């Protein structure tokens, strides 16, 4: 966790310094008063200052041995991967089918629910998404190769 804090602090420091760099390319003052670069510049300075304080505190604090990656972090990463795949398939499958498929697959892989239950959820979710969001709320959800 100490290492994670240090790494986090360095990322925030980098982020703050980047903001300072890009803000310095914007006008600090303008004809009518403060320019578009004023606040972002000081935000970047503030972030960099906070990051330095976080890094110093992490260096002084002994490691309490709290793990950054827990046993179930792997499952969270699995979920993230499934969401990414689902989003990549949305233009092909459409929202109704694509998201319903994601729901059923996540129930099966993460929740270990039975195949029948997942299949019924897929059908119900596809119909529900199409009719609730697409028809009732009139949201123009992209359709896929199935026309849904």
């Amino acid at each position: 966790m100490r290492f994670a804090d240090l790494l986090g602090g360095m990322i925030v420091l980098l982020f703050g310094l980047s903001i300072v760099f890009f803000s310095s390319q914007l006008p600090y003052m303008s004809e009518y008063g403060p320019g578009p670069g004023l606040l972002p510049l000081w935000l970047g300075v503030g972030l960099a200052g906070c990051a330095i304080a976080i890094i110093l505190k992490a260096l002084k604090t002994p490691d309490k041995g709290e793990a950054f990656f827990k046993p179930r972090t792997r499952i969270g990463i699995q979920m993230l991967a499934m969401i990414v795949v689902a989003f990549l398939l949305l233009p092909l499958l459409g929202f109704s089918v694509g998201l319903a498929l994601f729901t059923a697959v996540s129930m099966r892989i993460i929740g270990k629910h039975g195949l029948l239950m997942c299949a019924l959820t897929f059908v119900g979710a596809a119909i529900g998404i199409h009719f609730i969001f697409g028809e009732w709320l009139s949201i123009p959800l992209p359709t896929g190769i199935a026309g849904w």
Partner: protein
Amino acid sequence: MDILQNLYMGFSISLTPTNILYCLAGAFIGQLVGVLPGIGAPTAVALLLPMTFSLNPTSAIIMFAGIYYGVAYGGTITSVLINIPGESSTVMTCLDGYQMALKGRAGAALSSAAIGSWIAGTIAVALLMCFAPALANFALRFGPPEYFGLALMSFGLLTVFGGDQPIKSIAATLMGVFIATIGLDVVSGVPRFSFGVPQLLGGVDFIVIICGIFGLTEIFNSIENPDEGNLIKQKMRLKDLFLTRAEWLASRWAIVRGGIIGFFVGLIPAGGITTASFLAYLAEKRLSKHPEKFGTGVIEGVASPEAANNAASISGFAPLLALGIPGSPTTAVMLAGFMMWGIRPGPLLFQNNADLVWGLISSKFIGNLILLLMNIFLIPFFVMILRVPYTILMGFIVVFATVGAFTVSNNLFDVWMMLGFGVLGYVMTKLKYPIVPLVLGLVLGRLAENSLRQSLMLSGGSLAIFFTRPIALLFMTAAILAYLTPLIQWGLKSLRPAAVKAA
């Protein structure tokens, strides 16, 4: 007299069949959300907000208000029956509520929470009717320096209330304010931090961010840290829900005190319902003749924090409506809703949209009554809902979040942005950076920057404008004190061992 006339007008709006239905829907959804793990009031409001584009704003805000105070009622059920808070505002209820359940008094714990919440909620609405218009009148005197001071004070209060790592709270706030600067600068028209991406010229939409942070981040956190507890299997009959005379006598003043504490804490920007319930519990314990019994199953330990969290959820609307400053993550999301509907909360809201304001205030009387009845007669139904596995719910949360992000501009780019913010929120939580300051920074960032620039234009670049106007000076002083509080506490802690050694 004005207040009564306005209230009459409000009831004429909130008592229409449509608005009663929306109030009922909001209360029911709120209760459900409170019971279900991994979903909180900000998530529910964030996910439903995009669906309300075409709704009447008054009906929509009545529904969202119902969700907000309904959530605390629902969270009590899991606190009492499983010893796991359904909501952060019901953490304190676990201490005595679960102990009461172990002694066979789960019904009494739940009904004292429901009755206490209803009484405190009713008192809070009555106080809101007096405070909110007065606050709005006071806010008519605000100019850009006052608004900047208020925003800075809100950020500072978050540092004080925001947890045990104030420097990370400040960093998260600064990140939120930075994200609010992305896009075309409204004054000069210069693009900022869009890096040539046309979809970023309009800035990052708040709905996209909250769907990611309150939708996806919560899923990743809940998967990693599942709530596990043993549901107390106790058959609850209607007569089990009635308090004994001794229990009623022990809890009545706890309810009143909790309600008053909750109301005033909820008025403070960034105060929130969690802080209110915490402070009410501590106050009740301190005032009790038997403080050693707290934590063993005393009814005051349930009634007081429950009264406080409901009162705070109602008074939190005062800064939102009168000043345009949200008092909690949920009201921050509602502020986004107001902007979506083209309504600007603030002092003029009471003049320009009086029907919305008073319709909302009067609906809280109705919503609290609905929740009281729901909690007395529908407890077995909600206990049944407790058994729905999270692995079924999480897929549907992703569906709502994805559709919600897509509806912003019918663009898959926003869906990917939402995912990015979901991952950012998860990493922040892992590294113990609080999320709420990021959201508040995002919501108030534009207001803070515009107020700052207008103030400096007025003063010719001098910062003295923030310290020479009395109200602005008050806010700036409060902000500075808030930022200095962690340093003062750290200094006192460092001095204490030296003082002990010297003694």
